[in-house]
Each structure stands twice: as C-alpha cells, then as structure tokens.
C-alpha cells in the first residue's frame, strides 16, 4: 500500500499573524478528481499555496506520497491563478508551455529537442499550437487558461494543483479543460482544483474538500456534497472564528 498523494496534518496558516486556515487535516486518495470548494475568503487558494510551500505554515505538516515536498516536487504540477502573472510579459505561447519542463531540468540546463517535442504535444492536446508564436496578451481568456494547462501537462506530474482554472473562460474551453482533467484522473493521476461554481461540482468532481477557514468536510462526492455540509460551509459568517483570529492579530500588536 503506497502512501497517499497528499496528507495534510494540523495545518494552520496565518497572514500577518492572523490565522486564515485553522487546523486542516485531510488525506487525498490517489486517482481522484478533487474539488476544493468554499465561499470567498475561505482560504482555498491559501490551502494550495501553503501545501506547496509558497506561504509559510504557522504549524502542521504536509506529506506528498509520504515525503516532504522538497523531495517530491518533480511529481507535483501547479497552475496558479490566471491573474497572478503579467500577461504583457515578452513571452510567446511556446515559451510559456516550455516552462513546464524547467522543473525536471533543474538549475542551468536548457530545454532541448526532447522538451520541445513534449511542449509541442501539450500544445496540441490543448489545441493552441496555431498560436504558438503569439505574445500571450493577444490571446482570449480561455486561450490563456489553455496555455497554463498545457504548461502544467508539460510538467508530467502525478499530482496537480489548479487554482481556479475555470475563471473567465468560455464554455468550450471549460469543456476542454474538464475533459482533460478527467483524462488525467483516468490515467491514475490525482488532480485538485479550486472551484467556485457550486452548480457544476457534482458533475465535475468525485471527491471534495469543503473549506471555510477550517475544514468543513472532505470525502467522496456522494457522501460529502450534502445540504448540511454546504450549509455549514456557506451558511452565515463564522463570527466567532473571525473574532478569535482578529484577537490573535490584535494580541500580536501593541
């Protein structure tokens, strides 16, 4: 029995000492398409970033296939939010997709013929090969998201984290992306997706993590996507949790 792709234990994350995620405990089994669901400000993106070591943990541990992230980063792919990068940056579609191969190359080594071929295949999978020489500002929102997805494919990971891949994309692209994610899942890979649209949740995912500053529920779609759990995640503000977080922040400053 191999270790699960992702185990999070007692993870607490704080911005400026104010906790935004409390004591998260979750184990994601292999080969699932996982939706990370919750209201605005629930800490969905924070969960991903903290797991990948982009934000320091206030406490807790994260294990990837039973090991710390630094030992397993080559098995993990990441798609940041589309707005997190500067689309005026002087790079073409091909340049960006090729970036997916950088992690496996390590420091200094440059991508060669093998990496170029891989990038080419990934562009074809997403149907963006005809734009390969365009600067990325000249793409529509959906095309930009496809570029990010193609780059993630080029990472050839076993476990993927995707931060809101469906925001600002057209219906056709959304269909393409979800088809691609289901394909990855069918190949035995594990995919975690931060997702906003509650309506499509049962259709898209087979495992969900419901968040609202703390873990509300995590598990199989059928048993977890219940009105009671949704009520707990979305129903009203968690005033007491907010107040305690605020007290921690105030206590830390004079």
């Amino acid at each position, binding site marked *: 029995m191999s270790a699960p792709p992702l185990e999070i234990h007692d993870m607490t994350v704080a911005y400026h000492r104010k906790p935004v995620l409390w004591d998260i405990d979750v184990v994601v089994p292999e080969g699932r398409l996982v939706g990370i669901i919750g209201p605005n400000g629930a800490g969905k993106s924070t969960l991903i970033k903290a797991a990948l070591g982009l934000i320091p943990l206030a406490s807790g541990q994260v294990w990837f296939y039973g090991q710390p992230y630094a030992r397993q*980063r080559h098995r*993990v792919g990441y798609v940041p939010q589309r707005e997190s990068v500067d689309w005026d*940056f*002087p790079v073409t579609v091909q340049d960006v997709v090729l970036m997916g191969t950088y992690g496996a190359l390590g420091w200094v080594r440059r991508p060669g013929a093998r990496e170029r071929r891989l990038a080419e295949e990934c562009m074809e999978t997403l149907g963006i090969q005809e734009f390969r020489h365009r600067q990325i500002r000249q793409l529509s929102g959906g095309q930009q998201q496809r570029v990010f997805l193609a780059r993630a494919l080029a990472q050839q990971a076993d476990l993927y984290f995707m931060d809101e891949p469906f925001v600002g994309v057209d219906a056709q692209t959304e269909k393409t992306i979800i088809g691609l994610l289901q394909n990855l899942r069918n190949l035995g890979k594990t995919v975690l997706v931060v997702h906003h649209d509650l309506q499509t949740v049962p259709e898209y995912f087979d495992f969900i993590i419901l968040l609202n500053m703390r873990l509300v529920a995590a598990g199989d779609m059928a048993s977890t996507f219940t009105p009671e759990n949704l009520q707990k995640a979305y129903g009203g503000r968690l005033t007491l949790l907010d107040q305690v977080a605020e007290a921690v922040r105030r206590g830390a400053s004079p």
Partner: protein
Amino acid sequence: MWHWFAELDPNLQTAITVIVVATMTNVACALLGCFLVLRRMSLLGDALAHAVLPGLVIAFVFTGTLSLPAMFLGAVAIGVLTALLTEGLHRQAGVSEDASLGVVFTSLFALGVILIKRYGQDVDLDPDCVLNGMLEMVDDNVWQIGGFEVPRALVTILPVLILNLLFVVVFWKELLLGSFDPALATAMGFRAGLLHYTLMCLVALTTVAAFEQVGSILVVAMLIVPAATAHLCSDRLHIMLWLAAGFGALSALVGYAAALIFDVNTAGAMAVSSGIFYGAALFFSPRYGWVSRWLHQAALRLRIIAEDILGMIYRAEEWAAGRRLQPAEVFRGLGGGVWVRVVLSWLAWRDMIRRQPEGLELSPAGRLWAAAVVRSHRLWESYLVRHLGLPDDHVHEPAMRVEHYIEAPLQEQLAGALGAELLDPHGRPIPQLPAESESPNKDERQDQP
C-alpha cells in the same frame, strides 16, 4: 594590435574611449535593467543605485583606497541593509512598500552626500563627480597593463559587463521563469529569493563599478530607460535584451555627440538621449506605439466605411431586384465626407464595385464580401431578438456597429445557436456563404485583437 589606435588624433582617442566605456556601462546596466523592469522593481534598482553611496564612502574612509573589492563590499553591505530596512519597515511597522523604499533610499543617499562632504576631501572623492561622472576625463586616469595605457574605467567596467552577461546567459531559464511566474518557479524549486538577491547584488556591483567615471545619474537612467524602451518594442525576452543593449549603446553614441555640440555634461546628455529614445518608442513602436495604434484605428475606420458601402449596395439590390444605387446616393447615405469618396474610389480600383451607367454594381468578389457583412448583421439581429429578447425595432442599430467584428467562426457559432433560421427578424433572408470560400478580407480581420 593597438598601434592603429595610438596613431589616431588624441581627441579622437578620447572620443572612442569615452564612447566605449559608456557603451559598456550602458549595456551592463541595460541587461540587468530588463529584469528589473519586468519584475516591476524599477524603483528598487533606482533606490539601490542611490543607497550604495554611503557604503562607498564608508569603505573609502576605512581603506583609504578606491579599490573595487573594498568598494563592492561596502556597497553590498549597504545594499543588503537597504533591502532589510525596507522589508522591515514594510513588514514590521506596516509602512506601505513604496513609502518604506522611498524613506530608506533617500535617507541613505543623503547620508552618503553628507559623508562625502565630511570625509571626501581627504580622499579625493567629489560629490559632483559621483552624481554626474567625469566621463570627459576618462583618459586622465589610466593603468599600465602590458605596456599599454588602459583607462581605469575600462578595466573596472569590463569584468562587470562580462559577469552580468554570464549571469543572464547561464541563468536565462531561471530568470525567465522567476520573473514571469515567481510562484511556479518557487514551487519547482528555483528559489525566487536567491535570484532576487543575486540580481540586487549585481545591480550594486554595476553601480559601484560605474560610479567613479560615469556617475550615478547615468547608471540610474541606464538601469531602467533602455529596458523600458525595449519592452515597448518587443514581444520576446531575448529580443528585448538585445534591443535594450542596443538602445544603451546608441544612447552612449548620440549622447556623446550631443554633449560635444551643446557643450554639456556627457553622462547627462547620454541619459537624456535614452529618454528621447523612450519617447520615440512610445510613438513609433510597431505594436504598442501611438502611431501604429492610430494607423490601426484609421484602417479599421476605412474598412467600416467600405463595408457600409458594400452593405448598402447589396441591400438596395435585394430590396428592389436589380436596383442600382448612384454614387451620389451612397455618398449621401453614409453622411458624406472625403473618406467616403476615397473608399468608393478604392473599392472601384480593387474591382469590388463597378461603375455602370445605371449605377453601382457589385463584382463577384464584392458581392461575397457584402454578403459576409450582411450575414453577420442579420445573424446578430436574430440572436438579439431570439436569445436576448430585444424587440425587433431595437436591433438594427447595435447590429450596424457589431457587424464589422463578427468573424467567420463566430458567425458559425451564432448560426448554430439560431438553428435552421434563414430569415432575420425583419423577414429578410440571412445570406449563406459558399462553403469553401472565406471572407475576402480575412487577413485584415485577423489583425483585430
């Protein structure tokens, strides 16, 4: 190999030396500057170039020499202090990032000026020179290397240029990814902080190497302006770097000439000419310049007039079979103006319309173009009525505006959404295009962003 140089006129020798030294400095700065601009750290580079001043003076006072290693250590120490103080003010004291940067670097710079005034005289360091440089006197300060007199400034800046070049070439991939998407770079194990501080150290080193002859004004300008100019003119990073280096070198050349002509400070003239290049790029850059944008708008306006003319003739023919419009009717119908006349002539010249005695007639190519426009118009009208629930009499105006932008693939999607509808809301047929033909102005349409 240097004999030819020694035989030149001394004035020419000076000119060449000054331009070579300035070019090397400018290129060294421009290379790093590209990454400062792209990482939105322009101000930080600027701040660092200023803030290292007290570091230089302190190193100077302690060692009593102008040797590069001592200067560099002093500058890097202050550079790191700048970064730490800025971070500290921002993180711990909650001061906003730009304010903390502004406070730290102006204070340190002022401290540097005071220190120079106080201790500079003893060790021959002049605030005026630190600011404006003494490029004109680059010949006076030489080292003997292998029997040749080599300007000291050249010996200092050349290794720095090579180092910067190596840094960019060796860590190209990491710089590209780290600047474009720092989160992914960090997730992949390329520590963004490491690159960031290496970049900062190199900025400090370049500033130090340049300050003595070239002065900090030129360094500050060259770190940012050529890179910003190049960013306006290029869509790929390596082209941007080449262009930035080119603009840096050109500024050195033009600035030197300007300084001779107007009898002003050389470094200042170089910095000003780089600013002029930036202004020129704002106007003339192929993709982002105002001129090209204006031309693009003008081309779009002309195309809209052309399509309106074609659409008008098409509709008139359709309304009363075989009815031909007179040029004067078209002219009046589109509100007149010199451009309508010009476009009418252009359409006739391109053989889109033919002037017959009984009026204007569409050529086969013109008819195809007109049909595409009318199709796009009527598809959009039908869509507005059917899917947006707009009343019939409210859809003509919006469709007049939108018809010029709906390309063939979008037309097909609209047609798909409308099903087998063949008539528009006003009961007129939606033109069908022959399957294999494409709209004749396809290339023009693809230019639309």
